[in-house]
């Protein structure tokens, strides 16, 4: 039995639509919609989350993320410059740091900073400082590699032009290379911000007071209270309020860079 290429294409497409239709029909008739609605879409429970989930949880998520991002960006820039240093030990140190913090789960870093450090050194660290350190230490490892790539993407002629005008190596870096590198890495850095937003949910490990709840912890507490998954869904949608615009921003930035080149 031989089919022309066009016939084969048509048959293949028909099979794909067929499978999709089967899955949809199965879900419509197979699922217990009443149960699902009660679990996920309980409007009373959903309404009860407001305004706390916005005024406390969403705000805290943003605050934690920005603390970690700010610290991570500064540390990442230092690490990127170390990676490009002409002094070998700096390069080794930066490489070790980056490999370590990219390789271990953020969860472990939170545990180490939240419990390990206070016990080992007998110190009490402010909750916000712990969050900033933990998120920042992990984020810096990723951002360092991104920033390094950005610095290396600035054409060599730019440094030559700057040095020819009498600028020192450091001045050329600050005034000419780094401003251009940051334009190049703006889209991947925004992606990093999205990842950090989600990683900020690990803050729950530190044991938070009510006022310090962020989205994930807030949702989980409400879940226990109401025996409904609805708060989790609401918390998830709140994350999207942050991440979807950021994702949109990344695409716009990428389009702008593509046009400029």
């Amino acid at each position, binding site marked *: 039995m031989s089919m022309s290429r066009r016939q084969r294409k048509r048959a293949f497409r028909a099979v794909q639509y067929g499978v999709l239709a089967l899955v949809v029909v199965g879900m419509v008739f197979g699922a217990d919609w009443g149960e699902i609605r009660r679990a996920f879409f309980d409007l009373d429970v959903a309404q009860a989350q407001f305004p706390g989930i916005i005024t406390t949880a969403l705000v805290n998520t943003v605050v934690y993320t920005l603390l970690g991002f700010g610290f991570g960006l500064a540390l990442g820039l230092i690490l990127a410059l170390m990676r490009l240093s002409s002094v070998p030990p700096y390069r080794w140190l930066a490489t070790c740091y980056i490999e370590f913090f990219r390789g271990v789960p953020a969860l472990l870093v939170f545990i180490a900073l939240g419990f390990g450090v206070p016990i080992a050194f007998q110190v009490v660290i402010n909750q916000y400082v712990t969050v900033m350190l933990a998120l920042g230490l992990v984020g810096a490892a990723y951002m360092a590699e991104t920033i390094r790539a950005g610095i290396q993407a600035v*054409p060599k*002629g*730019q440094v*030559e*032009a*700057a*040095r*020819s*005008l*009498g*600028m*020192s190596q450091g*001045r050329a870096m600050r*005034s*000419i290379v780094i*401003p*251009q590198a940051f*334009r190049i890495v703006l889209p991947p850095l925004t992606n990093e911000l999205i990842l950090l937003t989600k990683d900020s949910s690990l803050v729950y490990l530190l044991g938070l007071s009510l006022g310090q709840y962020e989205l994930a912890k807030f949702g989980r507490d409400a879940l226990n209270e109401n025996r409904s998954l609805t708060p989790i869904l609401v918390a998830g949608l709140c994350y999207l309020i942050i991440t979807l615009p950021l994702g949109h921003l990344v695409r716009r930035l990428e389009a702008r860079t593509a046009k*400029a080149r």
Partner: protein
Amino acid sequence: MTAHNGEAAVRKVKAAGQDEPAGDEAAIRVEGLHKSFGKLEVLKGVDFTVRRGEVVCVIGPSGSGKSTLLRCVNLLEEPTAGSVSLSGTELTDPDVDIDRVRRRIGIVFQSFNLFPHLSVLANLTIAQRRVLGRSKDEAERIARANLRRVGVAEKESVYPAQLSGGQQQRVAIARALSMDPELMLFDEPTSALDPELVGDVLAVMRRLADEGMTMMVVTHEMSFAREVADRVVFMDGGVIVEEGPPNRVIGDPQHQRTRTFLRRVLDPAAAEVAEDGAPLA
């Protein structure tokens, strides 16, 4: 690493009639210059001077080392051996602050190398302010004067990407001039330009020469070299083959290598036919 081999420098035999300038007259003095990239030796002992107020054009086939020679003059390339001095200051001395010397040398690149994140005006003021410590007002006044000088005064607030190649190169010249350099280096300034844009850039360079600027120009523009240069230097294979006034080096070259090169450059179609044929009329 820099090595000094003044005594070991084997002077190349130069074209006859070359007059050695007196010590303090030389804006650039290069002696026994060697430069290797790994195993590739690009400059094989070059002695070269540019006097104050002189316009010297360096010509030669690609790979002859002429751009490397120019880049060694402001130490964008570190010489493997030999010395480079600027008005008596030895650049190759490790104790010399190279940043202080470089601000006295303007350089114009083949690929313009304007700063794309800065407006035209900021391209001209950033080094004036950060390096020379000029005030914003003074830097902008000098920048505007130089933009007028190169004929792009109306473009001061746009970004380099919005300019044509010829305009970008003229802005690059204005940027170098804003530092009040003692001399200007041009590294194939018109090679990246569309043919119809070359004239504007050459006109600006010609005017600079007329104003008495000391200039070293690596170029393929033979008519420019012939009309503007005080002296033409022909390089091939990492050495200076011949140098002298343009009407002699370009008009009546003494060496076979120079003749072959000029024939190829001046009339590529005829060179095909005349290859291995009779010497140029």
